[in-house]
C-alpha cells in the first residue's frame, strides 16, 4: 500500500517569522526525497492583511492579489529561497481569512498530500499552547498534518 506524496502545503502565518529555519528543515525533509511540489502559502486575517499591505506600501483596498502580497513577504521569500536552493519546486499562495479554515481550504484546493504548520504558540504567560488554528487544521485537514515546533 503506497501513500502519495506529490503536493505538500506549507502554511505560515505572522507568528512563524521566528521559526523559519525549523519550518524549512521540516519541509525539505518531507518534500525533497519525495520530489514533491510545495505550495508555499501565507495566511492573513483581514487585519493582518491590511497591516502587510501598509508595510509593503500597497494601498489598502487596492487590486493587488493576496498571492502577490505573499510573494513579497519576507517569510515567504526566505522559505522560497531555501526550497530553490534544494531544487524543490514550489508555488506561492496568499489567502485572507481565519487561519484555520483558510489552511484547510488551501489543502483541499491544492489536493495536498501533507500539510505542514508550526504547531505551538506561546501564551502571554509563556506556556506552550495548542491554539484554535492547530485544532481546526488537525480536525478538518483532508490529509495528514505535520506540526513543527520552533526551538523556543
Amino acid at each position, binding site marked *: *500500500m503506497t*501513500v502519495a506524496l506529490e503536493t505538500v502545503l506549507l502554511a505560515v502565518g505572522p507568528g512563524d517569522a521566528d521559526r523559519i529555519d525549523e519550518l524549512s528543515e521540516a519541509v525539505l*525533509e518531507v518534500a525533497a526525497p519525495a520530489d514533491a511540489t510545495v505550495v508555499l502559502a501565507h495566511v492573513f486575517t483581514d487585519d493582518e492583511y491590511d497591516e502587510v499591505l501598509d508595510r509593503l506600501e500597497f494601498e489598502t483596498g487596492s487590486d493587488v492579489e493576496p498571492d502577490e502580497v505573499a510573494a513579497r513577504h519576507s517569510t515567504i521569500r526566505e522559505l522560497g529561497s531555501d526550497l530553490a536552493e534544494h531544487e524543490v519546486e514550489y508555488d506561492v499562495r496568499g489567502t485572507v481569512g481565519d487561519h484555520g479554515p483558510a489552511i484547510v481550504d488551501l489543502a483541499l484546493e491544492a489536493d495536498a498530500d501533507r500539510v505542514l504548520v508550526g504547531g*505551538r504558540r506561546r501564551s502571554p504567560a509563556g506556556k506552550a499552547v495548542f491554539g484554535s488554528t492547530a485544532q481546526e487544521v488537525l*480536525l478538518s485537514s483532508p490529509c495528514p*498534518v*505535520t*506540526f513543527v515546533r520552533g526551538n523556543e
Partner: protein
Amino acid sequence: MYHDVLIPTDGSDDTRRSIEHGLAIAERFDATVHALSVVPEGPLGPLESEEATPAARRAVDHVEFEARRRGVDAVTAVRQGVPHEEILAYADAEGIDAIVMGTQGRTGIDRVLVGSVTERLVRMADVPVVTVRLGDKLRIDDEDEAERIARDALEERGTPAQSVAGSIHRVSGTWRVPFETEDGPLEVRVDGVTEEAAVDSLEADAE
C-alpha cells in the same frame, strides 16, 4: 532525514490510518519503526483490568506484523504510566525523529475534539508530530463476518480451518482470527475496511 519513526498505538480503530502512514513514511526513508503502547496508570496505580497489558501487546504486535509485510524494520515496546509522558520519554531515550499518530484514540467521543494525548504531544514534543485522522469506516464490524471471511481465506489457501483457537480480537481496524488447521495454528488477519485477508503462522511464545 528520519531514521527512527515512533508510532504510538492503543489498538483503536483510529490508529488504522496513522499506522499506514507511519509505515509509508518509514518505508520512504528506510527508517526503523518504533511501535509503542502505553497502559494508562492513574495516581493510585494501574487503572485498567487484566486485559490492558495483553491488549497493548496486541496493538504493537500488529504494527510489527504490518511493518514486516512491507519490509520495514520495527521494534515494539509496552510501557505503563501516563500516556503522553511515556511517549515523550521514549522519544527522547530512543532518538526518535518523528511521531506519527491518530487524532482521537479510544476515548474519542466525536470528531469535534482532539484527543488529549495527541494535543499534548503536538505541544510538547521536540520532534515533528504527524497527525492522521480516522479514515474510512469499517465495513466489517462484527466478529462473525470476520470469521467467515477468515475461513474462506484458509479454504482458498488449501488449509481449511478446523476450529477457532481462541478469542477473536480487532486491533487497529484489523480482525485477528486464530484457527487450528491441519498445518498447525494459523492466524488470519482481516482488514476491516478493505476486507483483505492475510495468513500468519503462530509461533509458540513469540516475543
